[in-house]
């Protein structure tokens, strides 16, 4: 379906810019040509999932479309994943072709992006109908085993709408393409024939330069992204940009960032989107206030119905995930209602987000499971007990905090240093504990709780 839409766009608007970055600038026509070249390569490989790691966003976007053309499931592996993690991901999804920037050692089907893009395009026509293989979107695993949410492109694109005038929009890709939100940006711009600007990195200077140079008028990002980006902008610089549309999602939005964005971009519309990888896009709020109106509980809104059960937000959706690759990870349900894991509080005419039910930590929009971090800490010599939790943070929403008890005979500062070393080797940057304190821990109801700090 992704490929079908690109064919239509390329036919109607072949010369219009689609993917714009510092290294590459592709029109719809050029994106179609490159997708066909890559699809030709893939059709000559053994069937199976195509795992992509290490390319720039423009190449990744083309590869996703090419996989659809070739009826191959795609899966983007984060550049932060270690080789061991990549191996686990590939094995968990039944193996397949691993595409990277550098040739790999023997033992697995591999290819490089250079081979895929440099190959000939077959003179045989590729199927006009898109495949059904879809994409696997990776989410954080509870104890280190990565989860993969499986989607067909039909499902992912079912919420995309052609909006009048949207073809003139210029969006910034602020999320990576291995995130649900990043894929939604790609789909939205493709369906609406808009332009998607791909910054070379997420560093402030690169982002601002991309926004100004390519006259970006629309940006969708997490509140953490916006706090960091807006925190370094002054009103004068903000007025040099063309930003007229701001979207926030991925984590709870607080009033401080909404107010700050209003101050910097007084003429911009500001929308908060509630969506999850497991459930898809749910609803949006455009009134500039945190949380959502309580009247959303009384009627269908966006793609969902909402209700609160025991302080947790539940949703009932029509289009969502096909399933998990691993059956042991099931979404909690109450009949047709799906648990979001978000704690909410109904106050007057408003519903506010208050945290998570399961202790899952949300670091800048990325979910972190405490158990995984605890296991790593407990593997370090000298750690007698450990408790991992999310600590509120004004920059990232939450950070991973670790309280630990140190065995006798071990120096606390050395144990902490060793934990940091182990974390750098075994955890993603989001998962690494950023506040470590020695404390006295006790067990209550079979759970470790912190008694006092030392």
């Amino acid at each position: 379906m992704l490929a079908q839409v690109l064919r239509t766009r390329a036919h109607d608007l072949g010369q219009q810019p689609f993917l714009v970055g510092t290294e590459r600038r592709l029109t719809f026509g050029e994106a179609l040509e490159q997708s066909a070249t890559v699809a030709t390569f893939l059709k000559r490989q053994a069937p199976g999932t195509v795992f992509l790691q290490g390319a720039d966003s423009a190449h990744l976007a083309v590869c996703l479309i090419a996989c659809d053309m070739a009826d191959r499931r795609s899966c983007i592996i984060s550049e932060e994943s270690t080789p061991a993690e990549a191996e686990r991901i590939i094995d968990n999804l039944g193996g397949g072709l691993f595409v990277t920037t550098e040739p790999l050692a023997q033992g697995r089907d591999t290819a490089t992006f250079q081979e895929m893009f440099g190959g000939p395009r077959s003179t045989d026509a590729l199927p006009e109908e898109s495949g059904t293989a879809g994409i696997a979107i990776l989410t954080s695993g509870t104890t280190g085993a990565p989860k993969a949410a499986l989607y067909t492109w039909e499902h992912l694109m079912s919420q995309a709408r052609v909006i009048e005038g949207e073809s003139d929009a210029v969006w910034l890709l602020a999320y990576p393409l291995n995130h649900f939100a990043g894929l939604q940006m790609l789909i939205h711009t493709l369906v609406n024939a808009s332009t998607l600007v791909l910054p070379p990195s997420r560093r402030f200077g690169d982002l601002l330069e991309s926004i100004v140079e390519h006259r970006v008028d629309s940006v969708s990002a997490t509140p953490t992204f916006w706090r960091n980006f807006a925190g370094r902008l002054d009103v004068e610089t903000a007025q040099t940009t063309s930003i007229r549309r701001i979207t926030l999602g991925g984590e709870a939005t607080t009033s401080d960032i909404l107010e700050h964005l209003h101050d910097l971009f007084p003429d911009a519309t500001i929308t908060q989107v509630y969506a999850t990888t497991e459930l898809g896009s749910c609803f949006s709020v455009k009134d500039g206030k945190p949380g959502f109106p309580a009247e959303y509980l009384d009627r269908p809104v966006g793609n969902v119905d909402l209700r609160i059960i025991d302080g947790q937000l539940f949703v009932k959706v029509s289009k969502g995930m096909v399933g998990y690759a691993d059956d042991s990870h099931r979404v909690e349900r109450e009949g047709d209602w799906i648990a979001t894991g978000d704690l909410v509080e109904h106050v007057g005419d408003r519903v506010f987000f208050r945290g998570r039910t399961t202790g899952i930590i949300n670091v800048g929009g990325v979910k972190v499971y405490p158990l995984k971090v605890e296991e790593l800490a407990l593997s370090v010599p000298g750690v007698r007990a450990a408790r991992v939790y999310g600590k509120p943070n004004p920059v990232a929403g939450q950070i991973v905090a670790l309280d630990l008890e140190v065995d006798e005979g071990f120096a606390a500062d050395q144990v902490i240093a060793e934990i940091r070393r182990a974390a750098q080797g075994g955890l993603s940057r989001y998962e690494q504990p950023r506040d470590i304190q020695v404390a006295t821990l006790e067990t209550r109801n079979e759970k470790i709780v912190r008694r006092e700090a030392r």
Partner: protein
Amino acid sequence: MTVGTVDDRVIKVVRDVLEQKGAAEQEVGTESSLYEEGLGFDSLDTATLSAALEREFGRDPYTEGEFPRTVGELIQFIGAQS
């Protein structure tokens, strides 16, 4: 809390964060810019800095809606309330 002037303590906090991100060799002075044009702090490093300042001084600029650009501005913030 550690003993020393506010300047020394703030710089030590910044150095600790640099060490955690594997950049202990970086020079740190009051003129040092915190972000990519200087010490290279991204959002996660800044979150760490915020937590470390709060632990050392009981407060940090980010919680109070400020976004200091240099080590000197951090010192100024902490010193103003000490």
